[in-house]
């Protein structure tokens, strides 16, 4: 009875188009937000921060980006790792070139740089579709990694070829570097993710989102009713890369601290992001978060159970984990191609009618 629609009337189109049309849903959302912003920071410790919360937020941002491209615009990309690398290296170059620049601005700028690169690699999408495009984005993945490996300018000629994030502060509190505190890095990531999740929601609910979805659902018809494929596809590539670039910047500067490009941004990262989007739900903002949460928590859980509890060797646990993730992907595609987000929707529909079956 807590969750119901009856009596919740809308008298304006504006009220009808809000993100959470049902009152109890709005309550739930704001409760979670208050918890995340005002309660979690007081209880956070280093383990939770490093193992769960920060990777969750960073991957949610990356999944959000990929979801815009793949879930909303229907262009499958296997280049997420490469674009994250662009964001990371842009972040590193900007951080070292302008030491006084605010970290928020650095991250957003990294996003813009990646958006530019994304447009460039999105150009083939105007001619090719489907698998062919997926292969083209693989080209981006390999090419970008190669570039960051081959040209020492990108890693400031460091001997190891690694990039290391220097310490940067916001209001005197370190958010990157070895002295950063768990709650500070967590809030920094959370703020960025919160703002840009809201932006993603806005972009996908209006004209732009509809032009993406039109291209996804039936590109020829979309073009005939007036969607410019050039603008729709390239804007999707740009926005998607913007998000993935910011995720890459955070992944490097806040989460890893130091990164070697082949290891940190390899093709496995591209697949991981794709899996998050599939498991979470294609074409759903909430799904990006659910998928990221699921695939960030799963290995942590596995490690705790199999290695710490049962005392199995880590490689056996790792193999089992890969196998299970693969199996889960297939399972989800068979049982619920729209992912966890759809399960959530179905649950809500049932709740709305409860206690009646129909």
């Amino acid at each position, binding site marked *: 009875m807590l969750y119901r629609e009856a009596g919740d009337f809308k008298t*304006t*189109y*504006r009220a009808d*188009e809000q993100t959470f049309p049902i009152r109890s849903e709005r309550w739930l959302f704001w409760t979670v937000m208050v918890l995340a912003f005002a309660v979690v920071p007081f209880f956070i410790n280093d383990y939770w921060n490093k193992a769960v919360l920060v990777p969750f937020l960073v991957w949610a941002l990356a999944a959000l980006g990929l979801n815009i491209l793949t879930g909303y615009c229907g262009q499958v990309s296997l280049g997420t790792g490469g674009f994250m690398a662009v964001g990371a290296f842009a972040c590193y170059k900007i951080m070292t070139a302008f030491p006084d620049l605010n970290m928020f601005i650095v991250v957003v700028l990294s996003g813009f740089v990646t958006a530019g690169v994304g447009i460039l690699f999105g150009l083939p999408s105007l001619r090719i579709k489907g698998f062919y495009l997926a292969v083209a984005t693989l080209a981006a993945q390999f090419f970008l990694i190669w570039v960051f490996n081959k040209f020492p300018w990108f890693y400031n000629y460091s001997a190891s070829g690694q990039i290391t994030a220097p310490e940067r502060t916001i209001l005197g509190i370190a958010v990157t570097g070895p002295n950063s505190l768990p709650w500070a890095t967590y809030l920094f990531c959370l703020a960025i993710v919160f703002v840009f999740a809201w*932006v993603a929601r*806005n*972009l996908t*609910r*209006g*004209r*732009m989102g*509809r*032009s993406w*979805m*039109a291209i*996804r*659902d*039936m590109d*020829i*018809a*979309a*073009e*005939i*009713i*007036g*969607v*410019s*494929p050039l603008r729709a596809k390239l*804007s999707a590539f740009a*926005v998607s890369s913007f998000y993935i670039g910011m995720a890459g910047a955070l992944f490097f500067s806040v989460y890893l601290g130091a990164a070697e490009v082949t290891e940190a941004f390899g093709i496995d990262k591209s697949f991981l992001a794709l899996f998050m989007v599939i498991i979470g739900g294609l*074409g759903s903002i909430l799904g990006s978060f659910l998928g990221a949460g699921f695939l960030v928590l799963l290995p942590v859980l596995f490690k705790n159970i199999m290695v710490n509890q049962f005392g199995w060797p880590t490689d056996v646990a790792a193999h089992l984990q890969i196998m299970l993730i693969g199996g889960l992907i297939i399972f989800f595609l068979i049982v619920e191609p729209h992912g966890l987000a759809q399960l959530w929707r179905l649950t809500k529909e049932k709740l709305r009618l409860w206690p009646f079956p129909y």
Partner: protein
Amino acid sequence: MNVHVHPTQEFRFMRPDDGIKQGDPLLVVDNISLSFGGVKAITDISFDILKGEIRAIIGPNGAGKTSMLNVINGFYHPQKGTITFRGQKRSRMRPHEAANHGIARTFQNIALFHGMSVLDNIMTGRITLMKRNMLWQALWRGPAETEEIENREIVERIIDFLEIEHIRKTPVGRLPYGLQKRVELGRALAAEPSLLLLDEPMAGMNLEEKEDMSRYILDVNQQFGTTIALIEHDMGVVMDLSDRVVVLDYGRKIGDGTPDEVRNHQDVIDAYLGVSHD
């Protein structure tokens, strides 16, 4: 005294002002030929569509009717011939540019966006009329939201007109065939077109649905003043609805005129009933 106001009166604003007087040619197709590799789909076809009329294009299967519509809205590019729309000779044009110039259409095999709701599908039809850039949309509050709501109001009137209020938030994939056809018409109308191309709007419908659809087409033509080009196989419908008919067969034009003229034209009768070769 009760004055009955037809709901479509609200659509006065939708009458597109394209600078063409009622009854003057809106679209002139001149000597169009189209082929794929060696296969000729259309050979030397010329006809015109006058502003405000309902123009039917008929012919047996494979006569080149759909190809003709594809040429008109820029999806196929003819090898030969010219198209003049609203007095302007048109060069090679992409389909979305044609849409921007005021040509909307529906499709033979329904081409709705299956992952979207009815409302979103029809809103997508207004894509050429919504102008706020990405930055405003990212912020939402303010101009983007205002624009969205203004357009929503217009779309809601179309939804009223087509009597599909009850399904506005339903994903189109769940709808029965007849309703999908209606939603598709709504999406085309949402663009406020000067020329509406309908590719077999009544294919696969039962009598009742056909009557409904005929009424919508007539209403659109009379209330909004939209010029309509229509492909249809049901001769009864064609004869009742259309002002003039062009008949195609094997990619050539074999007849052109009012329904009565065409009905009695010998070539047309031959094309439909076959000719005895004895």
